[in-house]
């Protein structure tokens, strides 16, 4: 792995800054989270409620990026917190509460996707309902033409993501959207960093194929 080693903190901060995410270590304060976890472990329900309120939006966004279905994402995020509460006695604090929660959310989202696939449902059924608000380098709110192109690219991308196996989707979202390092992703999804690298590669390659026509237009 040394060949692909990155400066995880800097890389994570860089991606998060670009995406306008407040770094997890600044908000909420890890110390506060740890203290809250300790109190929750001692049975203080209100301490856990505070943790939930702090992390619910981020957990929901992660779940949504994975399942692309608002109701399912809400269900996954709420279930993740419920499971986190029942598993609190086993939480040793080796990772931050946020990273630990990521793992639960991702696993539940993967389960949800697999269930839907086995049930014959479209796994990514509201990709057309992507949020409209511009955010990021591909959008150009002042230029309607570019904004349309960005929207079309996002729609293509969403369709490509819909075709990815859940594990590849999880790796890509955790890396590119959440800004996690390979090691953090490995911990979150329970595999080796090498497997993360492999999943990222196949996922990126698939998306590159999906965006091929778009790329030709943009060149």
């Amino acid at each position, binding site marked *: 792995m040394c*060949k692909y080693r990155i400066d995880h903190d800097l890389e994570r901060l860089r991606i998060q800054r670009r995406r306008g995410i407040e770094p997890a270590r600044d908000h909420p304060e890890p110390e506060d989270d740890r203290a809250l976890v300790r109190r929750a472990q001692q049975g203080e329900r209100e301490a856990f409620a505070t943790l939930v309120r702090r992390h619910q939006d981020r957990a929901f966004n992660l779940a949504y990026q994975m399942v692309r279905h608002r109701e399912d994402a809400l269900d996954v995020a709420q279930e993740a917190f419920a499971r986190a509460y029942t598993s609190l006695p086993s939480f040793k604090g080796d990772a931050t509460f946020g990273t630990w929660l990521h793992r639960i959310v991702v696993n539940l989202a993967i389960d949800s996707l*697999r269930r839907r696939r086995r049930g014959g449902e479209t796994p990514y059924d509201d990709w057309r309902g*992507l949020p409209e608000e511009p955010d990021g380098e591909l959008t150009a709110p002042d230029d309607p033409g570019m904004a349309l192109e960005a929207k079309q690219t996002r729609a293509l*991308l969403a369709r490509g993501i819909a075709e990815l*196996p859940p594990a590849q989707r999880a790796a890509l979202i955790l890396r590119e959207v959440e800004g996690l390092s390979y090691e953090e992703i490995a911990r979150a999804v329970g595999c080796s960093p090498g497997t993360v690298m492999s999943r990222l590669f196949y996922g990126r390659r698939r998306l590159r194929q999906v965006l091929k026509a778009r790329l030709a237009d943009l060149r």
Partner: protein
Amino acid sequence: MHWLHTTGRRGRRLAAYAAGDLSGPERARAESALAGCPGCRHEVEAYRLVARALRATPRVSLTAAEAQAFWPEVERRIAAGERPRRLPARPALREMLWDHRRLGLASAAAAAVLVVGLTLGQMSGWLHRGSVPSNGVEVVSVEPGGDAPVMLFQAPGSSLKVIWIFEERPSVWEVIR
């Protein structure tokens, strides 16, 4: 041959470089290699666009109503406690094979060899060594019996004997062929 064209790893290196995942010497090596490889630069640009598109994915927030109802619902689920837990869906075989293709192929080959070996070994043991190891039943005698071999089985401690008459069949190898 170009460094980035190393078979099997080329794509990974390009994708990792484009996404900013390479560091130090690897990054420098990639950059110097890219300088003389227009095709590689083309691919890197494609991967960069994918990364930019992914990073530009809009974040989704809870509505005010959803945010307000969030904790009460979590609390309800906690209180329910014994809520029916759905078993986690196992990864599809396709996904597992995708992640571990070499391991999957090796395992399948090993399993096939094991099954064939055990089958042949067991059949050979029945016919030539005169015992069946799996259930404790012993072969008392084997009579070639011309065209139809006859085997006499008896369980230890039992007076009951079982006679098997084997009709002539093609050999195992003939069947496999």
